[in-house]
């Protein structure tokens, strides 16, 4: 049989989460199709068709799919499920929302946020905020899996798969889209960034957070993250939150500034390649996982680092 993956996109651009999910899906060893479900999303389907190693792109284009609402999206995936023995979805907010709905409609127990494919029916996944790793085997005839995208590299582009059209589902009218308030930023997306500069409660205010963190992030072309403590204190918006209850990231370089290193924060960033910690408390737990630490006042060290990098 085959594997179906759900593309992550905004109707205009294909999100890199798709290419990372593809890497996990290809490890199942079956032909892979990519489902692009959206509205006026032809450009996304064309971009998905260029990913290497796939059999085909299925494009479902209709108004009911414009905002990726769970009810029509799940109905669509279920209508296609007969041709697949695995459905693989990125663990983004869209994927986490829709995948369990699909699994229940198929009477399948989903496997959430896999970090490794052991075999076609066996996967590794973190539990207890990453403090334990479980190896689970599915006993269901189909698998529904969500993929922790930080755990897989992106598949290459360079393919040229056919784009086939499938019918968009009718709208049941159970839910409707009212509006969105999305942050607009020129910075790279947190989940896909190569470098992340993250700030904690030690920044002391929203103004200081911007004043200290932003110039360094600009210098490194980095995404900005924040600890839950900083978010709860109102220094940074929630979609910047890195941790068990926020985003899980694994950039090449993670710079933690004024972050003590609560378990819940470490769960979201401990797989980063290189971790730098800047904190004036030398006993802060963040130093137990940091590759390089500076025990010093962040308000002097961070501007100095920004300046040193500019030279």
């Amino acid at each position, binding site marked *: 049989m085959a594997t179906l993956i759900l593309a992550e996109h905004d109707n205009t651009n294909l999100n890199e989460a798709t290419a990372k999910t593809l890497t996990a899906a290809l490890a199942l060893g079956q032909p892979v199709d990519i489902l692009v479900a959206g509205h006026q999303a032809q450009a996304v389907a064309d971009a998905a068709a260029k990913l290497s190693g796939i059999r085909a792109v299925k494009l479902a284009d209709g108004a009911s799919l414009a905002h990726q609402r769970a*009810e029509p999206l799940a109905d669509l995936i279920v209508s296609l499920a007969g041709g697949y023995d695995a459905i693989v979805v990125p663990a983004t907010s869209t994927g986490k929302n*829709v*995948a369990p709905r699909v699994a229940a409609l198929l*009477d399948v127990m989903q496997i959430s946020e896999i970090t490794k494919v052991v075999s076609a029916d066996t996967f590794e996944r973190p539990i*207890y905020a990453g403090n334990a790793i479980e190896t689970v085997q599915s006993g269901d005839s189909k698998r529904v899996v969500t993929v922790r995208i930080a755990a897989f590299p992106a598949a290459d582009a360079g393919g040229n798969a056919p784009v086939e059209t499938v019918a968009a589902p009718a709208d049941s009218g*159970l839910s409707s889209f009212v509006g969105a308030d999305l942050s607009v930023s020129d910075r790279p997306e947190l989940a896909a960034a190569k470098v992340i500069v993250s700030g904690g409660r030690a920044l002391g205010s929203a103004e200081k957070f911007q004043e200290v963190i932003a110039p360094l992030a600009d210098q490194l072309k980095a995404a900005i993250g924040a600890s839950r403590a900083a978010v709860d204190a109102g220094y940074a918006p929630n979609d910047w939150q890195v941790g068990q209850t926020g985003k899980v990231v694994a950039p090449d370089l993670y710079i933690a500034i004024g972050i003590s290193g609560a378990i819940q924060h470490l769960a979201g960033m401990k797989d980063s390649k290189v971790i730098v910690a800047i904190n004036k408390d030398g006993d802060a737990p963040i130093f137990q996982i940091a*590759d390089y630490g500076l025990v010093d006042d962040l308000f002097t060290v961070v501007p100095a680092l920004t300046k040193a990098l500019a030279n």
Partner: protein
Amino acid sequence: MKILVPVKRVVDTNVKIRVKADGTGVDLANVKMSMNPFDEIAVEEALRLKEAGKATEVVVVSIGTDKSAETLRTGLAMGADRAILVKTDIANIEPLAVAKLLKAVIAAEEPGLVILGKQAIDDDSNQTGQMLAALLGWPQATFASKVVLGDGDVDVTREVDGGLETLRLKLPAIVTTDLRLNEPRYASLPNIMKAKKKPLDETSPETLGVDASPRLTVLKTVEPTGRTAGVKLGSVDELVAKLKQAGVL
């Protein structure tokens, strides 16, 4: 309107868990247990809707052993009106089975709204609410940061990648909570005493006619490969040199 709030007994959020050396799971002996934090937020939201006159009754339900009754008492002490325990000895009961059991409870209770935590902090599955919505054929709004109950519908603001999104759901509906929805109250001592007298009914998967047996086999549970502490550096220049050496600049 009645609001149903499923709650789960989990290892307390402040406990540093220990993986058993033989790989058979996480050591839960003599560990402090509490109500799943996201479920506390769900109970709080239901209570606020009742206090605002938009709901008439808040019912908490839990699936687990006798000990889950303690978690239900916590919900009652916060202010829920009554509780239902679906008693089972199946360890690690899975979200799909929980959703099926809740569907059976809902068939009898007929709530207008079900509010659940977005995920339990033990298995981190993040599935039950969505699965329950699917089995009931109800609309869903996960990761809620704001819930506005109207007449026949509910507007839910959701925390999504990149910001916020608002959906309108026809009732009855499923909502799952995110952290910023509210700050749950503490139960006062008089309310803890009062909770002991509130009704707590028991049922079972057999009575509800649900096969709750697991679909997944956990082959092993291990500790993640840890990181070791690196070096503390003396200056910014030293840090820049190290980062260049590591090839990340």
